[in-house]
């Protein structure tokens, strides 16, 4: 003990204040830079105070571990492409949750003979949460990186099996709390928690990833708060619960934007029917659509006064954000009003589209939220949909039997003209055919988003 405990506790309080301020700073783009900085300061003083208060014998291990953090962490942060941010988030959640799970396990082994029932229960719950989040985040990463198919993995009785595995993990946890000396049960509990996390995220489709990532984020925070309870450390409790509530609120916003419940996102397996309905889509192909070339689109755009661009995950896949910005610049030079309409679940993580467009130097005041842009569509001359599908499907408003029914959508169909850039007629993630394609004011442009938009830039420059 080198630093007076009162000072340590006071420094922890300062850390708590800095964390709270950092989230407050994120409410506005203008102050957002201070968000990261104040949290970093809070973290630095919290860690420094801990090091000053607790003597660590093996300084070599400590320095080695922190060095690994620098060597691994810095290149990840500096090199990751904005399109790959969802994957990076999944990796970082995997790291964070594995850290809390391992530390929880270490504490259990260290204190199982003396700790009281409450501490043991919190530790066990925290470990289950940590291990399931670790496995879930690994699978989320694999799906986002397309190492495994993004489609939900479903089989008869899927939810029953998953829940049964979780119940077994909980039962082992109860046993561990009752008989803490039987430490052999801890790895068994960990394996069942890992299995549950694995199956849970395997059963969830790619387009539901924004919600899943947010929920996993919440779990990591909750388990960190659990460690705070175990160690009687209020800095850990506050930081963990801020993260826990953040993930929870984001998940809530995401699932509300799809008009679905948490349970439906986690256990519904939406998107699994894609294979089945592919035949239906083929049949629907018979319905006539109108298609145009990039040159024709240029002519339509030049005669427009207001244009709204609606991007989706396809824009990220095609890396088309810079080309979109070029089109927008050319249109703005001709005096045409250009806005971007962003659906809350567009992309693979919350706020993903905004970051991609900001990277392409789109001023953020041109990025409009769905609720604000929707009333403007009737006065919009042209809506351009790039790489979005389900979030523009009018069936969500009109067809009660559609899986999308009730989901808030971008009302692009109300624009005077809709330009829909798409590779093929394949249905969206939900497996439902997009009614928008067949409307008389919709024109399809088939091809890779980046290619089509580059052609459009050339055509606009030529005229």
């Amino acid at each position, binding site marked *: 003990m080198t630093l007076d405990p009162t000072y340590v506790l006071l420094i922890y309080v300062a850390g708590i204040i800095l964390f709270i301020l950092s989230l407050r700073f994120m409410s506005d783009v203008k102050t957002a830079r201070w968000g990261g900085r104040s949290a970093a300061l809070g973290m630095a003083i919290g860690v420094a105070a801990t090091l000053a208060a607790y003597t660590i014998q093996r300084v070599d291990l400590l320095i080695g571990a922190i060095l690994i953090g620098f060597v691994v962490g810095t290149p990840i942060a500096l090199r990751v492409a904005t399109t790959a941010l969802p994957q990076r988030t999944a990796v970082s959640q995997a790291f964070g949750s594995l850290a809390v799970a391992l530390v929880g396990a270490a504490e259990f082994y260290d204190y199982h003979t003396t700790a009281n029932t409450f501490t043991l229960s919190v530790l066990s719950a925290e470990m289950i949460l940590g291990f399931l989040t670790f496995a879930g985040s690994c699978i989320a990463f694999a799906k986002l990186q397309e190492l495994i198919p993004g489609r939900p993995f479903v089989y008869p009785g899927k939810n029953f099996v998953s829940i049964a595995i979780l119940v077994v993990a909980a039962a082992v946890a109860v046993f561990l709390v009752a008989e803490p000396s039987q430490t052999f049960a801890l790895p068994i509990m960990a394996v069942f928690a890992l299995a549950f996390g694995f199956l849970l995220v395997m059963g969830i489709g790619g387009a539901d990833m924004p919600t899943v990532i947010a929920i996993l984020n919440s779990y990591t925070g909750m388990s960190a708060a659990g460690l705070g309870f175990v160690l*009687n450390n209020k800095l850990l409790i506050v930081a963990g619960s801020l993260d826990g509530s953040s993930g929870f609120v984001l998940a809530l916003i995401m699932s509300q934007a799809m008009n679905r419940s948490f349970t439906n996102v986690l256990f519904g397996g939406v998107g699994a029917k894609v294979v089945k309905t592919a035949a239906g889509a083929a049949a629907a192909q018979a319905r006539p659509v109108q298609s145009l070339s990039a040159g024709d689109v240029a002519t339509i755009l030049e005669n427009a006064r207001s244009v709204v661009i609606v991007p989706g995950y396809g824009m990220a896949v095609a890396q088309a954000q810079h080309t979109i910005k070029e089109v927008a610049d050319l249109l703005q030079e001709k005096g045409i009003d250009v806005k971007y309409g962003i659906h809350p679940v567009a992309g693979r993580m919350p706020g993903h589209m905004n970051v991609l467009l900001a990277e392409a130097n789109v001023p953020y005041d041109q990025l409009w939220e769905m609720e604000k842009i929707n009333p403007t569509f009737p006065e919009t001359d042209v809506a351009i949909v790039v790489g979005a599908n389900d979030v523009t499907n009018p069936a969500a408003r009109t067809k009660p039997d559609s899986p999308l029914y009730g989901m808030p959508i971008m009302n692009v169909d109300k624009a005077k003209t809709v330009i829909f850039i798409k590779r093929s007629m394949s249905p969206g993630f939900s497996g439902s055919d997009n009614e928008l394609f067949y409307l008389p004011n919709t024109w399809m442009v088939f091809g890779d988003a980046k290619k089509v938009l580059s052609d459009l830039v050339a055509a606009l420059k030529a005229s």
Partner: protein
Amino acid sequence: MMLELVANATATLPPAISYSSQDLVTNLLVFIMATFLGVELIRHVTRLLHTPLMALTNAISSISMIAALIVMSETTDQTLLILATVGVALASTNIISGFILVERIVRLFKTKPKEKPKEKPTN
């Protein structure tokens, strides 16, 4: 054995692991208040910044590094020491990459340049 030594050594710091039910009630209160505060704070975060927000909260939740450090200082067992060291490495990776990333993403958001857009934006 181990725990008693620790408890004596940190007599004025709140004792870890087995503490009074009064402390427990305080901790529950702190947890509940922080959760409600967190919900209010996050609801006011602009949707523009939800991606950097997730990077930020990920880094904040790696405060679990403190727990790993405490285990490192208290344990005498080699295996547990290694578990805690791995925990420190994972958490510090998250902390470092998280905060650099937040700074990087937030810098991308700019207001409208009033003059003509630049020829070749290289950023």
